[in-house]
């Protein structure tokens, strides 16, 4: 098999496999991420090979052409998709990159010379070089792990809790949701009071939340057929006299028949 046939075939097969993989829904990330990235790179590479089949391009120049064209392909593709009304979803992008790669592979097959290529320099990696590179990789990985890990808060940073009172989304017109969410730095206990038109209607004495927890209740304050001014106040158990959070809303009257 000649060099150009081999290269064109490799482009077609690898791009085909990548396209098939990215079109599979719910594919695990460790497979999908490299497949999708490789598909984009292949399109840039194939296009650069197609354009410069008659010259030998150095490694740096080839990388530059591949990366630049891989970035430009979707931008130009979008300018075609938009006026044609083609939705820019996974199938469109996958077929665009696959199409460019196939066209590039065809050009490689038709235009690439079968003459032997000039012999390139061979990279010689010494043992100590490999050790240094390996160490560099390990240290970089450590730096990334440390850099992307959430860390404990500084001593002078405090957490917070939120309280909300809103008409229930997708609920009945008179239904309201009252909620508390804790983003405190430790487990906290709260007391929550609810007033209707200035008079205490309900108290929740002990709401205990760990960081990230939520507490919600659905209410119908207007069930008696009247609109009410609703006020909710949140107190921290460790500071029970001070209002920690407060919300206020008007509850609409329930429709009467």
């Amino acid at each position, binding site marked *: 098999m000649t060099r150009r046939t081999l290269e064109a075939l490799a482009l077609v097969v690898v791009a085909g496999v990548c396209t098939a993989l990215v079109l599979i829904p719910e594919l695990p990330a460790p497979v999908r991420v490299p497949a999708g990235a490789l598909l984009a790179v292949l399109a840039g590479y194939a296009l650069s090979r197609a354009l410069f089949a008659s010259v030998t391009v150095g490694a*740096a120049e080839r990388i*530059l052409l591949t990366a630049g064209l891989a970035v430009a392909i979707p931008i130009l593709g979008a300018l075609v998709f938009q006026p044609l009304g083609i939705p820019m979803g996974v199938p469109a992008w996958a077929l665009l990159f696959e199409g460019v790669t196939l066209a590039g592979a065809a050009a490689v097959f038709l235009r690439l010379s079968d003459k032997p290529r000039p012999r390139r320099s061979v990279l010689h990696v010494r043992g*100590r070089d490999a050790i240094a590179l390996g160490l560099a990789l390990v240290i970089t990985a450590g730096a990334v792990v440390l850099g992307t890990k959430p860390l404990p808060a*500084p001593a*002078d940073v405090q957490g917070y809790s939120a309280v909300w*009172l809103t008409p229930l989304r997708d609920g009945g017109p008179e239904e309201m949701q009252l909620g508390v969410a804790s983003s405190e*730095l430790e487990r906290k206990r709260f007391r929550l009071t609810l007033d209707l038109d200035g008079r205490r209607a309900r108290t929740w004495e002990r709401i205990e939340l760990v*960081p990230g927890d939520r507490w919600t209740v659905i209410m119908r304050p207007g069930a008696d057929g009247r609109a009410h001014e609703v006020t909710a106040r949140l107190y921290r158990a460790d500071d029970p006299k001070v209002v920690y959070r407060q919300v206020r809303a008007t509850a609409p009257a329930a429709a009467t028949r």
Partner: protein
Amino acid sequence: MSSVLGRAPRTIAVGRRALAGARLLREDDGVRPTREPAEELPQAMPIGLGWLPWLALSTAVGLALISLGYAQSRTGADHAAPLFYGGLLAVFVPIMVRLTAATASRGERIASVVLLGLALYAAKVLHDPFAFAFADEPVHQHNANEILRTGELFGFNTVLPVTPRYPGLEVATAALSALTGLSTFGAGLAVVGVARGLLMLSFFLVVERVTGSSRIAGLTTALYVGNPPYLFFSAQYSYESLALPLVLFILWAVLMWQRAARGWAPHTTWAWSAVILTMIVAVVTTHHMSSYALVGLLFAVCLLSGLPWTRRTATPRPWRFALAAGVATVTWLGIIARDTVGYLGPVLTGAVESAIGAVTGAGATRQLFRGTTGYQPPFLERLVGLAAVIIVVLALPFGLRALWRRFRQEPVALLLACAALGYLGTLAARVVPAAWETAARAGGHLWPGVAFVVALAAIGLADRVRILALGRIAVVVGAATVFMGGVIAGTSPTVRLPQTYRVDVGSQAIDPEGVASASWSREALGSNFGVVAEEAGGREMLLLARQRAYLGPRPAWVRILHAPKLEDWHVALLRQWNIRYVAVDRRVIADDELAGYFFRPAGDPEFSKARSPRVVRKLDRVPGVQRIWHSGDVAIYDVGRLRR
């Protein structure tokens, strides 16, 4: 140093002075015609990696120090700043040492500058590893999300309405996100990472083509990172971060096209033309200012090619590409991006008016090294910042002299010289308040010229003063000073080191109030409501809740938020713009588009400053307005009844 890092293998060693600024334009650099007889080509020979593995190791150590410094900053521990600066120097200095040497191979130089660019980009990524938190980043991420959500271009963006009209960056991000399943945050980081690599490689190859020297190209590219916005601002997820590398790519492709057309490989001119035109379209659809810069750049190359001493009969001028770029830019501006004029107009007009005022004495001037909040950096930072500018200013005459003597026949070299001279002009403009930002941005665009001219001066120094390698040492120290000065000048001291964003609380991690309130609003209220908010909160409302967020001084949102009382005209404005919610943030820092996203450390006066209760609670006193969310600093009010 050389005993530790090893010597370059003999197979790649060249004469020490062979590349010392001499004009060695080799036609076999990079791209060769395959029609050349194989027997005339050099035989395969083993090439070692030179210092590269050790440079990778020192870079990794530098990154680890930076990451450790960031961790210290996020947890409020000491020594964050020394670790950060030490890490940056550990990345920069060894690479600079190698690049000043005459013995490094071309491949080693290319790999070194790309390594430098990617390592410094990693420093930016590790600065904000959980979410985009630089000024324009949430705005562009929202645009990418909209393309993914709707499958169409030109979605809504109330914070920076012009950005969806330049969708190049977001399209590339959306495509990668769709193919890989990565979030737009992950895909966006990858796209800008590729752009960083493109930037370093393109600039290297441009300078190499102009000078014929990979040594000059390596030093120039390494000095480019001393550009003040380089470390953070130019690495943010923003359209300019992709467009600028593409402009340099086009410049390289034009040089290759000229070379092909000179007779080296005339059958490839159509291929280079195709590449250039493709990239012109990509730039024009990605960023307004970069497309104007590209048009100016190409016309300048054409004009400079016509000078008596640059004119070569065999070298075609790239008029066709300049015209194509001009036509594409005007067409895009006229049909798709008409809002751009209204967006850029006030910024540029303000800068010009302020500059005229400062010159005539009618306007105020700005005190150097003093922020708008009155913050003054420590003495050492001011010293390094000033030293960096002095080094550049002192080096420019020597570099310009070397340029004139060796490269004045090269139009691109002359263009870089003009840019270097223009940079001096921007230094003067930095004392003008309204022109400061424009001057700083223009300085960033002119920096390639500064890097080139200073590199020529540096090579002259390194090769003239050879006793105990004092010349090289001076060059490395000077370059490190310029780099650190750039880092200091180009980043806000408030966020130069990362603030606390995501906090580990055992089995959970919690995010700041702005994130919580925006996420809640999407879940509980739905999307596409008019929301008035502070700079930071508005961006989060746009990105995380897909609300029509309104912020800033135009028309007067910030005045409504910061007034002690809700006036009648406020109500009229809220009605006119169909505003449903107002998000009030007690923190003064929330008005800062760079620093407003984080937890509030009580011990930091900058972050803990609060607005008066009268301002913060004014909406509690307005009948019909309901406070529906309260998390301490942030309160969301439903002002829907004011619309009736």
